[in-house]
């Protein structure tokens, strides 16, 4: 108390604060849970230029350009985003930097909002760049600033690795002033032009730099020993450190690794010498464990702890207790008990009024094979729509629909489609579309244009006409773009209008030519979207046929009436009056305060 600068900050906001204090002038990122708020929070500082790039590779290259020009720069993304940006990263390791360059990457152990559970530390090792891993918001702020110092001192991009629990937990930080170091740009072809002759000279520099970084790591304050009981020694990093301290406090000794690449071998050996049993506690892959094993030191790790999902205090307590790797007298904490009753799960669903719903209903009705992509609309794979049959990575829907249709000699093209959101299309759908246009498959690509990047919480993108600050920006015209690629058939439909969707889909599937359907309506959660009043069901008319239930709207359910019959009921707190359900009702039981039929459709197809 008493310190004015003491604040409760989200881990990602603490990184943003660190970027501000480190004098960063340029940030280019692509949104992705759990990394998005770093760039959103940084954009609130007027001193920092921030932008959403079309994808992570472009963002990484833009940040590199800015660091080359002499300004400290940052690029943020989620773990899978770093795969997209891996190409520039691996060679930036060779060129090094001018002003400091830090690359933020946020892993998602537990897959709260991701398609895989990959461990980004592999990228640090493979690209041969240092990686810092904070364990709370205070460290997130401090490590961000340290990352820039290391970047400039060792002439390297530095990876700053967050994970969901550090990125999305608030804890206390102390704020300091902003200091802006700036460098001059000087032409240096041997350093910055990575053609074979130059790259051959830079690779030895990279290896020498790693040796220097190992030496730094041996005494770096971010790698610290906390001696406690010496029966058990634990090597840990990131959020796992917090669970270890929660469970054991000072009863064990801890080597907390803040820099997970490269690792401090002497420090590890010194720690090992002071404890009886060694355990590595790290989420996901055995990176530290394998390194210690390669040093010839016996260690427990993934033999007792899982390689999947995130950890927690109880998990660590149980696994170490079962293995007998706990301090003397340690007892397991008491577990709570639940009701005996089966509790129905509550998976995420498309929101009431989601514009994707009508389109997926139409695809299902027409028996389409739907190759999907990354975004809210991936929920089109969930019952009762159960429409999407494949989701891989950003942009894969278009790449795959082309391959699928080519492999069947076009036999599948009359019922196979790709669905991809507007932001995902800009990210890496355009190149897939170029392939359809160039190698000519009769593929139908549906762009779900909800005029925003939805899943990550409403970020602008190149099709929305606004930038990260909400100011007017360039706006890419999807229809013109598709036509310029050679698509003669580009159709636009309103997904709230089921009849129009059905007609256009049937026509485009039937035609022997590549085509694009743009299903256009803004996300129902956007603040500027005006909703109609909620619909009501006339229970005297409703025949309980459940036709309206086929769209899986969370606002509609079947409830027993006074006469015991099951009738549709609309939740008045959830319904936004989109009227899609009323188009399915055979007896016109839905009514809206504004129109008799209840439909609010405004078809423009």
């Amino acid at each position, binding site marked *: 108390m008493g310190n004015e600068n003491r604040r409760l900050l989200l881990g990602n906001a603490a990184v943003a604060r660190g970027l501000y204090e480190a004098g960063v002038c340029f940030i280019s990122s692509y949104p992705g*849970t759990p990394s998005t708020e770093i760039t959103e929070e940084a954009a609130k500082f007027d001193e920092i230029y921030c932008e959403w790039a079309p994808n992570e590779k472009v963002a990484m290259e833009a940040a590199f350009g800015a660091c080359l020009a002499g300004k400290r720069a940052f690029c943020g993304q989620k773990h899978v985003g770093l795969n997209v940006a891996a190409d520039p990263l691996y060679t930036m390791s060779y060129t090094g930097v001018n002003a400091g360059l830090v690359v933020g990457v946020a892993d998602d152990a537990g897959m709260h909002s991701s398609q895989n559970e990959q461990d980004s530390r592999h990228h640090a090792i493979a690209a041969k760049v240092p990686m810092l891993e904070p364990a709370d918001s205070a460290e997130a702020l401090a490590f961000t600033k340290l990352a820039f110092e290391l970047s400039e001192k060792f002439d390297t991009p530095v990876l700053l690795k967050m994970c969901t629990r550090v990125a999305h937990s608030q804890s206390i930080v102390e704020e300091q002033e902003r200091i802006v170091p700036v460098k001059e740009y000087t032409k240096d072809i041997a350093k910055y032009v990575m053609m074979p002759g130059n790259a051959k000279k830079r690779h030895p520099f990279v290896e020498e730099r790693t040796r220097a970084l190992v030496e730094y790591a041996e005494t770096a304050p971010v790698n610290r020993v906390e001696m406690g009981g010496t029966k058990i020694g634990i090597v840990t990093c990131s959020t796992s450190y917090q669970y270890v301290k929660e469970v054991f406090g000072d009863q064990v000794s801890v080597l907390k690794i803040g820099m997970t690449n490269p690792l401090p071998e002497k420090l590890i050996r010194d720690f090992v010498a002071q404890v009886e049993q060694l355990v590595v506690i790290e989420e996901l892959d055995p990176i530290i464990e394998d390194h210690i094993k390669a040093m010839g030191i016996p260690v427990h790790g993934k033999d007792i702890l899982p390689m999947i999902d995130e950890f927690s205090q109880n998990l660590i307590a149980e696994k170490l207790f079962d293995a007998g790797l706990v301090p003397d007298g340690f007892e397991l904490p008491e577990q709570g008990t*639940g009701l005996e009753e089966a509790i129905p799960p509550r998976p995420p*669903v498309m929101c009431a009024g989601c514009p994707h719903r009508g389109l997926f209903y139409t695809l299902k009705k027409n028996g389409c094979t739907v190759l999907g992509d990354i975004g809210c609309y991936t929920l089109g794979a969930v019952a009762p729509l159960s429409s999407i049959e494949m989701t891989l990575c950003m942009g894969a829907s278009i790449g795959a629909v082309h391959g699928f249709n080519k492999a069947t000699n076009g036999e599948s093209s009359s019922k196979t489609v790709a669905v991809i959101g507007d932001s995902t299309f800009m990210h890496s759908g355009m190149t897939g579309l170029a392939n359809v246009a160039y190698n000519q498959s009769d593929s139908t690509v549906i762009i779900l244009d909800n005029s925003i990047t939805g899943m990550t919480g409403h970020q602008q993108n190149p099709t929305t006409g606004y930038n990260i600050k909400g100011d007017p920006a360039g706006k890419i015209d999807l229809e013109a773009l598709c036509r310029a690629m050679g698509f003669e058939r580009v159709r636009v439909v309103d997904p709230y209008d089921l009849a129009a969707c059905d007609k256009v889909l049937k026509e485009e599937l039937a035609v022997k030519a590549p085509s694009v359907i743009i299903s256009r309506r803004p996300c129902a959660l956007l603040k500027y979207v005006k909703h109609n009043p909620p619909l009501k069901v006339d229970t005297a008319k409703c025949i309980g046929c459940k036709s309206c239930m086929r769209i899986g709207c969370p606002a509609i359910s079947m409830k027993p009436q006074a006469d015991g019959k099951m009738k549709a009921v609309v939740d008045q707190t959830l319904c936004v009056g989109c009227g899609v359900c009323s188009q399915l009702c055979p007896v016109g039981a839905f009514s809206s305060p504004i129109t008799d039929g209840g439909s609010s459709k405004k078809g423009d197809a």
Partner: protein
Amino acid sequence: MKTKNIMIVGVGGQGSLLASKLLGRLFLSEGFDVKVSEVHGMSQRGGSVVTYVRYGEKVYSPVIDKGEADFIVSFEILEAARWLPYLKKDGVIVTNTQTIDPMPVITGAMNYPSDLENKLKNSGVKVDALECLQLAREAGSEKAVNIVLLGRLSHYFDLPEEAWMNAMEQVVPARFLEMNKKAFLLGKAQA
């Protein structure tokens, strides 16, 4: 002081994030170490969401595990039942009585369990249930369910009303402040 644990559970979109932010600011201003863990991304889309608030002298883990919660603040009663194993034996549930059908119930694959309030009470924990939606409407907006619940939760803390109001001012936009203060007091008045 031993770390105290509050879980806020509900359905994505109900406003649990704001409630956790308010609690975080409250305990920070009381001089405690605080951690608040949030949920973002896909899980927010109408799914079961949980936020953890922990405070004490020194807080390590940002999450609350089974058997650790002193309080479960629940925006929907099925969610209170879902997260019950996380409550301490002598813990308290402060819950909204509102029910929102999850998709397996909507599609008819499962039934919404009946009489959850009594079943929770019979499990031996203290259950404080109130009709928050009604009270929030009375205050001026259905969106104030979160603040009604916090008003009720405030009974269990030895903190002046002013401290809660100060925390509210830090997280609620000025134009909604009066309405939310009313919601807080309506929740607090329920006993």
